[in-house]
């Protein structure tokens, strides 16, 4: 598997970033869903949000790198067998996945920095607040975070189901070309 994308398939960098981001998005969603109901005396009460925030900040950097790589690299062409609707809807979904990720991460950061404090990333470094203290920003950012993250995992699930449909029903290379697998001859 080569590093860069080709017209026919994703390279190691593009595919690797894709799966890393997918894992992080679903991991963060699961952790977030779990941590908001932790009780005060739970061992994870402080640790879970700390991990959630830290990974969220790191993911932001990864997504920015991924976008830069995406613009610098070749984009694989749609398969010939794909209909215009499939090509268009896939493209729209990809754009919204990026927008929702950026919205989810930005709003999460704004919850934590609404009081003017920074976000500690593990015990490694701290990202300062950009806005400074803004009264009740945590509430607005919290609502945005809630809906953006639900929309994101919903759309990501649809995106995954569509890939599985291409693999299982249409039996084409859509999924295969972002996996470290051999493509069919066509």
């Amino acid at each position, binding site marked *: 598997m080569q590093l860069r994308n080709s017209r026919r398939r994703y390279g190691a960098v593009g595919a690797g970033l894709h799966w890393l981001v997918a894992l992080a998005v679903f991991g963060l969603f699961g952790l977030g869903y779990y941590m908001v109901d932790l*009780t*005060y*005396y739970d061992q994870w009460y402080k640790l879970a*949000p700390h991990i959630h925030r830290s990974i969220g900040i790191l993911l932001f950097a990864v997504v920015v790198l991924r976008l830069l790589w995406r613009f610098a690299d070749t984009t694989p062409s749609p398969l010939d067998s794909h209909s215009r609707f499939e090509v268009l809807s896939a493209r729209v979904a990809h754009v919204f996945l990026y927008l929702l990720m950026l919205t989810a991460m930005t709003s999460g950061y704004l*919850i*934590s*920095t*609404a*009081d003017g*404090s920074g976000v500690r990333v593990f015990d490694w470094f701290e990202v300062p607040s950009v806005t400074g*203290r803004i*009264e*009740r*920003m*945590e*509430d607005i950012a*919290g609502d945005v975070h809630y809906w953006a993250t639900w929309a994101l995992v919903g759309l990501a699930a649809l995106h995954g189901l569509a890939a599985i449909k291409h693999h299982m029903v249409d039996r084409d290379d859509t999924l295969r070309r972002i996996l470290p697998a051999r493509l069919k001859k066509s």
Partner: protein
Amino acid sequence: MKKTLLASAVSLALVGAAHADEHSGTYAFDTEGAHQFITFEISHLGFSTLYGRFNDFDGQFVYDADNPENSSVEVTIDTASVDSNHGERDKHLRSEDFLYVDEYPQATFKSTRIEVEGDDEADIVGELTLRGVTREVTLDAEMQGHGDDPWGGYRMGFDAETEIKLADFGIPTNLGKASETVTLEISVEGIRQ
């Protein structure tokens, strides 16, 4: 209020104009100048005290100098204005776990009777409505002072405090043994209308 005015009028007639207490009247909280604070104190794990405020609230009191028992006070608090100097905590305090501000955006206190304890002290008994629950509480109040202000108005100020149990007002979160009660403190300056 009618009662208060009547009482004032009666006492005015009894003791004569010379003794009429000029500081009787209705006082509005000085929200504009922010000479008013509602703070709360609660223990954190029994190790330290956490302080917070409600930034937005309004109210007024009626003071009857001749018959302080006939005075009254009412306060309306915007519960979403809770501020403990930590955005994530404030967001949590506004949630269903604590104040549930979407459902109960206001907390109110209305005095029902006043028991004068000394020259400047009184127990203000009244109904506190918080998170949809109304209970009788007693504010331990002290008048700090009153008089003409430098800008042509007449002011009077009080400090008062009471202690409530979180569970009594339906707050479902268990913060531990040391943190079952919270002390509410109000410090206000009223400007006579």
